[in-house]
């Protein structure tokens, strides 16, 4: 039996969520600071573990030639995510 991790509490950080922009909408070469990390529990945990925690700065380096996935730099390394996955991360407005 496995217990679901605690659900993301409603209300918490809602002030940020309301203003947050999805990381997938960053302009090319632009940076942003992570405010919220959402998504399904597995995906969410892995994104956090990879260092994408609130307060961290991310930069969109490029899009793949076919438009997706995206390449970001975070904490000094290069990470590729599909736009759909990057969209669960909200940046501070």
């Amino acid at each position, binding site marked *: 039996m496995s217990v679901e991790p605690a659900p993301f509490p409603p209300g918490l950080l809602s002030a940020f969520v309301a203003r947050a922009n999805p990381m997938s909408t960053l302009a090319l070469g632009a940076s942003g600071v992570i405010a919220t990390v959402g998504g399904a529990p597995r995906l969410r*945990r892995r994104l956090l573990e990879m260092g994408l925690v609130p307060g961290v700065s991310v930069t969109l380096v490029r899009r793949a030639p*076919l438009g997706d996935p995206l390449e970001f730099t975070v904490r000094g390394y290069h990470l590729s995510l599909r736009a759909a996955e990057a969209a669960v991360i909200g940046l501070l407005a």
Partner: protein
Amino acid sequence: MNPPLVRHHTIALAGNPNAGKTTLFNALTGLRQKVANYPGITVEKKSGWCLLAGRGQPDARVEIIDLPGTYSLVPDSPDEAVTMSVLRGLRPDTPAPGALIAVVDASNLARNLFLVSQLIELNRPLLLALNMSDIATRRGLRVDAAALSLELGVPVVPVIGHRSQGIAELKILLADSATLALPTPPAWILPPAFEAAITKVAASVTASAISRSARLTARRLLTEDVTPDLDHLRRVPAIAAALTAAYADLVAAGIDAVQTEITARYAWIDGVIARCVQSQPQTRRTLSERIDGILLHRVIGLVIFAMVMAALFTSIFWLAGPLMTALQDAVTGLGTLVTGRMADGPLKALLADGVFAGVGAVVVFVPQIALLFLFLAILEDSGYLARAAFLMDRLLARVGLHGKSFIPLLSSFACAIPGIMATRTIDSPRERLATILVAPFMSCSARLPVYGLLIGAFFAQYGALVKGLIMLGCYVLGIVAAAATAWAFKLATRRHGRAAAFILELPTYKWPQASLVLRQVWSNATKFLTKAGTTIFCLSVLLWALAYYPRAPQERLDAAAAHAHTAAAAQLIADEVPTDREVRLNSAGDRAQGQEQLAYSIAGRIGHTIEPVIAPLGFDWKIGVGLVGAFAAREVFNSTLSIIYALGSEAEDVTPLEDAIRADRRADGTPVWRPLVAVSLLVWFVLAMQCISTTAVVRRETGGWTWPLVQIAFMNVVAYIACFAVFQLGSRLGY
């Protein structure tokens, strides 16, 4: 005699992917390593011996286990699950490690230290190998190893794996690792409400005073969803109740346990890095970034990618060709040498057509496998494989595959066997399985002779362009079938959770290491020979027996030979001339005997038996025999038909076979082969799963018979329906 084993000393190497773990493993163990599989799964188990010279124990050695790279101890893939279970001592087949070496990429310290923060909590002696400081220095990062050691409370050894720097120091520490103090887990700062929730759960876990380990257990219960070592606790009613209450408290306090815990670790890591790393801001982009500017460029990047893939494909398709022929010839030559002096009979036939042909069927794949893995290892070790996945993911994601599916599928155009073996680079199990399932739809090189024969025989009146288009159509049909199957698989498995995410690190480029690359090639070639090779060999011998037994009575053979003799004699008189009359007559007799024997054999009878089933597809029993033979390898279809049409299987030129099948008539005088039959047969060869060698490899790679059987059933049903539709519709339309 082996040197004595230091007591309790199994040492596990753990680290992030791309941290240089394997290089360090090779530096520590040299050639004293073995690669096996964890039972039931396809994750590799690599272990080796490390000799510890000096320290008054010149003979001492320790066993080192190289674990799959992982980002976290909460696993996200079967590979990571193995790492977690070995490190926690949960695998009955692997001893719990006595000490750990954490391999850490100094140029990417923050994310690497996340795993270290979990390793510290395992309560085992821990050493930290600080790798790639050369790259860090070039990036203007200076990591103070001594300060890091103080911060983490574990010994830190700077190493440069590929130059074997720091290995001696590491070995000295390894010799003493049993006596190392256990690391003290640092206290991450968690919100008071979180600490209170932990206390609540910890109190239910332990009856006595709440210890540090009880708090750790409580925190893991609250934050981790994959905890096989703690699942028995979750079943204790008191603990389950405490967990539910604690969750309610956390929600009330507005705390998300997972995010808060991971963020707290990173907050601690940021502090450690601030105290231990001096960084000079870099104005220039790194070399790796400048290379990516070209290799991931939207135009140049795709052109280079196409060129790299063309080189890869050509090498496994064309370069391997002569090697394959040479190996095949060598085995056949050896067979002739062995059986040359033997009297005709079952033993000779078994050796020549069963055993040596079986060995040939196995070794013939080795050049392709070796070349593909040579390329793959170079691409992976240099860092380009991740870029290839980045470039191609969009295309493949639409049908539920992964960017990393591209190379396995491309390779499958040469041969599905190396292609399926190459799916090991795909770390998400579902995408890997989908890639394995659709790979045989790619038209492999063994189908080419069959396509050539059928197109040559039935579309001879058309120009090269039409013939080329038909050939292209076969390839396109295979690709469409693969895409449709992958998409259907995606839909079918959607209910079992979401598709795996594409979270892919693009590592710093580096020069591939020759030793690492060659080890990869060697280990894959030997693994194929020992594991899949035995199955392929046995099945090849079985197929030989099907075509050899039961033996036709001598009278039948004699009658067939006499008949052929007469017919050939009449033919020769009509044509007048030749001087080698006797030779020609005798070989006509021999071929007729071969034809009679094959028709009489189990394979021939299967051909007759399945005729009612395959008749709606337009196939007669002779084609049926050919299809049975094609299970050994698809191109065997041509040689089986050659025997069936009494042309002798050694016919180099396919023209006589093309003529023979065109001339073949049913009892009522209608031709057996019409262009529609050829089209139906082409569709069959594109879609049907009829390669036992591939099945043997799929069984090995998926760890059981379920998926290969599903694949055979699915592909052959699809092929049957498609051929049925083609032939029946075509017949109605008057073709």
